[in-house]
């Protein structure tokens, strides 16, 4: 039964992705410029990082560890952009415009149907670039990373992308009650800048800021620790996994709880 469900949602995803590709391919120059625009961000992250790493050291992290962190950042955030970003924004707009009925009336899981749209070849390419950068940086480390660490790091990276999606799903769900929350979502999402630097960087912050900044930094620092640190820091990783599971479950609960506030435009 699980296999059938997986096939069903995979085919829905493929259909939606094909529709997106067909639309994008109709305007090839725009598509090309979108890819260039997206890669400019990748280049920007690389350059800022390289300037930093050439001048400064981050407490508890070597130069190569930092490059693994950047690769992890790209994998997490561009995975989110590739799979979830469009869906989240469209959900907010559909709810605001009263067009969400389309998703409620379909015989499929509303959350998956509405929020996992996928798209952006440029985002997919950026994920691939992130994977290549992470692997290349891991090969430059002073020690050999055990296979179990690599597997754990990969799982934690996927969990981080889903955590980001869950957080933004909770924010998007507020649109059922409060209208257009796109600006709130964009504001919270801008905190992604904190994910570019290791968690230890923020140790001097006041507690009230720490509580906001640390979760974002953990999205990339925890998986990067799995890729680079021997021995593994099990306590932070354990806490992170438990917190993630809670967030993912809560996001789904909150989304479905919020739907009852929806009023159709029809």
């Amino acid at each position, binding site marked *: 039964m699980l296999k059938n469900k997986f096939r069903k949602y995979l085919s829905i995803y493929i259909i939606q992705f094909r529709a997106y590709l067909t639309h994008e391919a109709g305007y090839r120059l725009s598509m090309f410029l*979108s890819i260039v625009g*997206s890669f400019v961000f990748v*280049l920007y992250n690389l350059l800022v990082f390289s300037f930093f790493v050439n001048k400064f050291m981050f*407490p508890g992290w070597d130069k190569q560890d930092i490059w693994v962190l950047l690769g992890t950042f790209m994998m997490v955030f561009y995975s989110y952009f590739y799979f979830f970003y469009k869906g989240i924004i469209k959900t907010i707009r559909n709810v605001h415009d009263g067009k969400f009925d389309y998703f409620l009336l379909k015989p499929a899981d509303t959350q998956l149907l509405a929020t996992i749209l996928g798209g952006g070849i440029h985002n997919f390419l950026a994920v691939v670039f992130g994977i290549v950068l992470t692997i290349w940086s891991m090969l430059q480390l002073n020690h050999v990373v055990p296979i179990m660490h690599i597997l754990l790091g990969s799982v934690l990276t996927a969990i981080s992308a889903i955590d980001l999606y869950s957080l933004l799903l909770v924010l998007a769900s507020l649109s059922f009650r409060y209208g257009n929350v796109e600006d709130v979502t964009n504001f919270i999402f801008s905190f992604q800048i904190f994910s570019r630097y290791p968690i230890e960087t923020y140790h*001097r912050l006041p507690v009230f800021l720490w509580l906001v900044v640390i979760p974002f930094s953990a999205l990339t620092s925890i998986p990067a620790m799995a890729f680079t640190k021997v021995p593994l820091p099990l306590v932070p990783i354990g806490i992170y996994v438990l917190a993630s599971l809670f967030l993912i479950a809560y996001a789904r609960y909150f989304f479905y709880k919020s739907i009852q506030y929806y009023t159709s435009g029809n």
Partner: protein
Amino acid sequence: MKKYRTLFVQFLKEYFAYRIRVILSILTQMVTPIAMIFVFSGIGSTGQIGLSQSQIVSYFLLTSLLYLFLNSNIDDFLKQLIQEGTIVNYLTKPLSLIKVALIRDLSWRIGKLVTGLPIIILLIVIYPPTSQPLNSNNPLLIITTVIIGYSLAFLISFSLGVITFWLEEVWGLQNLKYVLFLFLGGVALPYQMFPPLWQKILYCSPFPYLISWPLRIGLSGNILKEFITALLWLFIFLWLTKIVYRLGIKKYSAMGVS
């Protein structure tokens, strides 16, 4: 003049119509410089780039303020007008679209400054700067650089917005502009962090003269050369904007417009 004054007031009212949206937009723009304050506070000594911790905090606080006023989003306005077809409202009236865009840009930038200033003041109270990062204390020089930076940002954004006459989506180019302003404009990192060769090449481009120039007048070693380069780019973009705009208007077609 009266019609443009009326438009200015109207645009300002439009800006403040959705206050929460305005505040969130300001806060979103300020996250990058503020985050950099946190990061630099965490890495300890910053003497390698010739700036103290306090100067770096001051730099990013002032850059946040300058970014609010010197960053132009007129490309968004033009993109919306062209895609929705509402540009016809301005083309069929006795108004110059460039002047309308200028008024609209000025009104929104003033709005952003007014909204953002209390937040900056709050940050200054939380992170009191004990030294100033300005390379030059001459007020006339600083005002001139602000005017040139303002104009250059407007012209670049206007040219970008007008490209919507040809392209269905200019999101990619807008992204490019955003990153260039942020990175090469000195908002994300102070210029002292760039390698010397980078700095040399950059000073020949228009980007150093966009946002953070008032903070580092003369950092290249030659103030006169900086002003000549900035003015040269200003005239280049003025000429480019006029040409792109004329070509765009010729290309544009809509119901009832010949």
